């Protein structure tokens, strides 16, 4: 269980997160949405420890992790798929998955993770995670690293961005599976996609660094649909 208590965060005097209180229970699938620049990625970075709050507390399973560094949080079971995945010269897809899995990983298992994100393992496993990969490819590999980690609290920052329509369906499947096998963990997804929002247990609307609305998907979705924060399912995808 994750608790954010009165989190504030500012950079050079500009307040980006302004008093966020949020609890993500175990076995919950929470989607954070809201307009561009609303502070979603920043909130995720605060949870992962990449940024430290100006004030407020972050509690994970009863333990105060406000001052824990990234590595400590990762070891406590927090995982984060970046909105813009990082590229590495010379590090191969298999190497990265192996690091994510904690140093040990069989080839077969790595193939499973890649297949789960819709990549043909044979074509990708030996590829370097460098700029030769397309935006969508690197995004899927990023998601695969979280699958390989098997984290208690998994945060995905706009996982659908850059993923084509066909694969998008596949991606929804991954999240539905993760949700089915949640096994005491929690999943937080930052998204603008109606399809992802619709499978949430809870939707949080973050704008101007504050939670503007929250509640069950059935309640929130009708209120925010047709606002700039949600992109409706494309007609093509429905066919």
């Amino acid at each position: 269980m994750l608790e954010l208590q009165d989190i504030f965060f500012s950079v050079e005097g500009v307040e980006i997160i302004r008093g966020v209180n949020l609890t993500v229970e175990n076995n919950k699938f929470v989607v954070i949405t809201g307009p561009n620049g609303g502070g979603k990625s920043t909130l995720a970075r605060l949870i992962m420890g990449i940024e430290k709050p100006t004030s407020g507390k972050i509690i994970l399973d009863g333990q105060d992790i406000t001052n824990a560094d990234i590595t400590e949080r990762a070891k406590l079971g927090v995982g984060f798929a970046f909105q813009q995945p990082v590229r590495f010269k010379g590090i191969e897809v298999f190497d990265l998955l192996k690091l994510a899995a904690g140093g040990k990983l069989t080839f077969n298992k790595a193939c499973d993770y890649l297949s789960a994100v819709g990549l043909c393992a044979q074509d990708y496993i030996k590829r370097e995670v460098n700029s030769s990969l397309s935006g969508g490819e690197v995004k899927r590999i990023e998601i695969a690293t979280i699958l390989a980690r098997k984290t208690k609290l998994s945060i995905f920052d706009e996982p659908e961005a850059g993923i084509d329509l066909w694969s998008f369906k596949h991606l929804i499947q991954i999240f539905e599976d993760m949700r089915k096998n949640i096994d005491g963990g929690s999943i937080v997804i930052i998204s603008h996609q109606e399809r992802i929002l619709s499978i949430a247990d809870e939707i949080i609307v973050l704008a101007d660094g504050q939670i503007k609305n929250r509640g069950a998907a059935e309640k929130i979705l009708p209120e925010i649909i047709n606002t700039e924060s949600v992109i409706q399912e494309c007609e093509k995808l429905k066919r």
Partner: protein
Amino acid sequence: MLKLDEIQRRLIAEVAGLHKVPIGAYNFRANSQLAGRNNTANIEITSKDDGSGIDIHIKDGTQNESVHIPVVLSASGIKETVYNDFYIGENCDVVIVAGCGIDNCGNQDSEHDGVHRFFVGKNSKVKYVEKHYGSGNGAGQRILNPVTEVSMNDGSFMEMEMVQIKGVDSTNRMTTAALKAGAKLIVRERLMTHGAQKAFSTYKITLDGENSGADVVSRGVAKEKSYQKLDLCVIGNAPCNGHTECDSIIMDEGKILAVPSLEANHVDAVLFHEAAIGKIAGDQLIKLMTLGLTEQEAEEQIISGFLK
């Protein structure tokens, strides 16, 4: 039979990846003495008359054979210059593994200056691997100054892998190549320096023949107070393609000077270079830390990938 002691065997394993006597032709040199040699039906190694080195003759049409010529120095205070000339016939496909390991526990400097000359015959394919390695904690320096001169005949192809990752205090590498029509040269250099080490690496590639091409990529990591100077030059004298790239990571108080240069003497010469020096990207460290690595572990992974 090989006449090598334990330290020498370990050095050979480092520089040539050899744990036992290789198949194919070889010439082992240990503390300035011949420690073992093997010729094959197609590859003949002979000592130069004046004792200054060896000649390696590879017959026309030699396919899928290898030559290993490792050199090890395990005594302090040796200073030697050795000339190795490779005469590679036409239509060959061979792998040549050179490399020098120095273990210096003494107080005197040890230095090996290897001059390697390659004459690559028409349509031959050569893969050349050269690894340099130093160990031992004596005050004496471990010094390696390799000179590599390549002349490539029509339609030949050569791939060079030059690696110096550890323990060499001072190195001054000089590689020159001249390419005839249709010849292609690929160079992958990896350099890592630490402590107070100094490494200079100079390439001068001349593309003389029509449709010749070269791709030289040097990746370096300068840690602590070490210094690297990379000087990559490609000259195009014909319709040709040349590319050089210096890509360096700088750490601690390291210093790197990259001097890429291009010279086009023909209107259809297409040459370009890239050079970048910077510290390890912060977001790379952060990403690996989010996977549970410490900052130091993340750094090691990034560097070992970069130098792979």
